[in-house]
């Protein structure tokens, strides 16, 4: 691999050929703000927040789409660059609601983070603001187009990851919007609610309805696990607050699916707290299933199975193991049947 040497803020660093200036900075822990860039999506170079100054180049090039050249001299933090970024942020904030206190994205909002970092006041430009209806006609995604900063990542996620292209830009200039065709609400479009758009939104324009009001990012712990729906084996992070799962976020580092999930994996976890969960053993008494203690229930099962085994032989007992349970549990079940009961009568719904 060919390596190139460049100077960033006076520091000499080496990176592989083909690296962008942005990646070169990030590899070397030099912070660059970005809104429209995502490593898993193609780069648009649209938000212009990642601009830097490069010796010999006209204007301020965006680092996310500028490739490193040998001997390049990059400035990422000089007053000119910082002022340009601040102005861009002021422009974005001028066309963005300032209801951050009640916004679900608070604490995880890139725009808020950078605005704070760059001392943006939100008072420099007064004028027209986008004023579009909020889309909350579905159980999963809350879409507030007024918070949209038009970075276009949701469009790319929908197209490049999901292959759906439900979303695109419409109109142009200041009137540009992002949404389904004819700017219909999600539930009137062909959207599958995979939620990939939500997973890439840097601001509060796309948020998960189920998580609204359930917890702030800093209160939540994340547990990576494997999805229990279908054989693809997607992984994601369960978001847990106070011992309760409040939702799911996708994790770009996971092996099979990266940020992609489907509607079930991302939004179906409220199943855990379904009213239909059985939370205590039940024993049939006088034809009715009634709650019982564990000891009573387990003793009853052990006794009954023991009696039947004794009377009719081990092969009069069978078990259905489960394609929904873990490997370890399936192992235990077949071992239970084979070693404890003494039969090979164990099967599961292997063929559906």
């Amino acid at each position, binding site marked *: 691999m060919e390596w190139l040497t460049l100077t960033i803020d006076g520091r000499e660093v080496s990176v592989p050929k083909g690296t962008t200036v942005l990646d070169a900075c990030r590899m070397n822990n030099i912070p660059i703000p970005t809104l429209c860039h995502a490593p898993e999506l193609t780069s648009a170079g649209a938000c212009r927040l990642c601009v830097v100054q490069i010796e010999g180049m006209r204007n301020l090039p965006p680092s996310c789409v500028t490739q490193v050249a040998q001997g390049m001299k990059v400035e990422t933090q000089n007053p000119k660059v910082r002022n340009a970024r601040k102005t861009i942020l002021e422009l974005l904030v001028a066309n963005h609601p300032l209801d951050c206190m009640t916004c679900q994205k608070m604490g995880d909002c890139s725009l808020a983070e950078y605005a704070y970092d760059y001392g943006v006041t939100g008072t420099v430009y007064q004028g027209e603001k986008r004023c579009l209806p909020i889309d909350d006609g579905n159980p999963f995604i809350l879409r507030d187009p007024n918070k949209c900063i038009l970075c276009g990542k949701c469009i790319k996620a929908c197209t490049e990851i999901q292959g759906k292209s439900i979303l695109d830009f419409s109109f142009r200039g200041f009137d540009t919007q992002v949404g389904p065709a004819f700017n219909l609400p999600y539930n009137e479009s062909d959207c599958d609610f995979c939620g990939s758009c939500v997973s890439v939104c840097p601001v509060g324009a796309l948020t998960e309805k189920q998580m609204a009001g359930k917890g702030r990012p800093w209160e939540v712990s994340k547990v990576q696990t494997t999805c229990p729906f279908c*054989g693809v084996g997607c992984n994601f992070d*369960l978001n847990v607050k106070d011992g309760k799962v409040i939702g799911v976020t996708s994790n770009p580092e996971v*092996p099979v699916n990266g940020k992609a999930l489907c*509607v079930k994996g991302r939004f179906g976890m409220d199943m855990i707290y*379904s009213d239909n969960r059985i939370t205590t053993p039940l024993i049939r008494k006088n034809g009715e299933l009634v709650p019982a203690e564990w000891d009573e229930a387990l003793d009853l099962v052990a006794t009954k*199975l023991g009696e039947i085994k004794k009377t009719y032989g081990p092969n009069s007992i069978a078990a259905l*193991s*489960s394609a929904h*349970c873990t490997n370890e549990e399936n192992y235990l079940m077949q071992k239970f049947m084979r070693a404890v009961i003494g039969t090979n009568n164990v099967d599961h719904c292997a063929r559906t």
Partner: protein
Amino acid sequence: MTNSINEIPNVKAMFVIGSNPTEAHPVIGTKMKQALAKGAKLIVADPRCIDLAEHADVWLRLRPGTDIALINGIMNIILANEWENKEFIAERTEGFEKVREAVQQYTPEVVSKITGVPVEQLQEAAKIYATAERASIFYTLGITEHTCGTDNVMSLANLAMLTGNIGKESSGVNPMRGQNNVQGACDMGALPNVYPGYQQVASPEVRAKFEAAWGVPLDPNPGFMIPDMFGAAVSKDLRALYVMGEDPVITDADANHVRKGLEALDFLVVQEIFLSETAKLADVVLPGASFAEKTGTFTNTERRVQMVNQAIKPIGNAKTDGEIICELATRMGYPFNYESSAEVMQEISKLAPQFGGITHERLGTQGLQWPVPHAEHPGTKFLHEGKFNRGKGLFMAIENQLPAEMPDEEYPFLLNTGRKLSHYNVFTQHSPSLGDHSPEELAEVNPSDAKKLGIEDGEVVQVASRRGELKTKVKVTERVPEGMVFMTLHYFDSPTNVLTNGAYDKVTKTYEYKVCGVKISKIN
């Protein structure tokens, strides 16, 4: 799957048959669309106009149950054009001549007549699949859930071997497993004829190994498979059934027959997280824990063993399924003393060779794809590189066969079943948001049939087969061909499996969920 999910975006030609990935395996569906975006060709064989059919280069709208004829026909065309991979056939396979002979009568014209697929489309499909640099077959239950399911699978294997499209990156035969850990349940020996790691119960050496490990003598005879169990219950050969995390009343074909079997039992234990239809019949119900409440592993369709990590405590008084089994075993005089599921995995890795190198610690955040024979082995991305399990790949001559029950005068519609994106089997019904999003069955009926029956989109109708009947709402759509009705298996209120046929494949005993005769009647 012989290949990995992330090899899909680099496939050059995809042959999707009897599979609806964008609904049943959504993220695999997205990988296929990524391949399309990179210029891959797509052949879809399905009687229904599934989402992928709209993206296909060729959509083969075959008659249900004519898969073998279709595949034989494609092979016939490949041979006629000399697109076969002679080198691969010579070096890696045997039995080819028999197949060559068998497919001779399956000329494009004959096959077109059987399948209803135009000759040009057959030719186009054969060309795309046979001439691509890297072609992969993807199939699901549309292939296996037939009385000739095993033969369907063998036919696809023939096709892959004929063109050498197996044993390479992004090229192979890929059955996509339906349930989250159906792969793992099989791997773990939750089958009546094999121990963990597909080691035969009938083999004395294998049995000796397990007897030594477990310290008890083991039964040398394979046990009941599911379809046998319900009959055995009725005949009183089976007295007790312990059901863990399954709802056969809803998910097995010919549900009324299943229910009859369960009712005949002396003792039924159901271990579940929801009060399922099967649990309602139980003598004892044991509350299990959901995936979020336990630690262990699932194995996905690409053989990747991945961690399930506990995020919360079991709800209420529930216990994990593993814990319950251990307690029962102990109470029955065979103590299961495991500290953790990690310790169970250690035992598995000692007994099942393809899990030899797997520990929870090694699985970490990325998992491992079996076979992982030893602790340093990185896992196996795709199978059959250079060599098949049995040595040479065996061609099998297969003839076309009809489904067990076809529509007739009394039951004139062909019922086809499958999944839809917003649900997974029956238990996503318990998710309030998914339930709200997709609350009821919408049986798909072709507009011209709807017109003949005088029914409208959204109308509730009665659907009946020889085995049972139900009510369902109807969706009038061109997606299904005339004479077909399509239903899912997701809804308690329209339990499709009261209709399906309990006939099954002779080898795997998989029910023929995909084809049976039904009638539709208007409710006045």
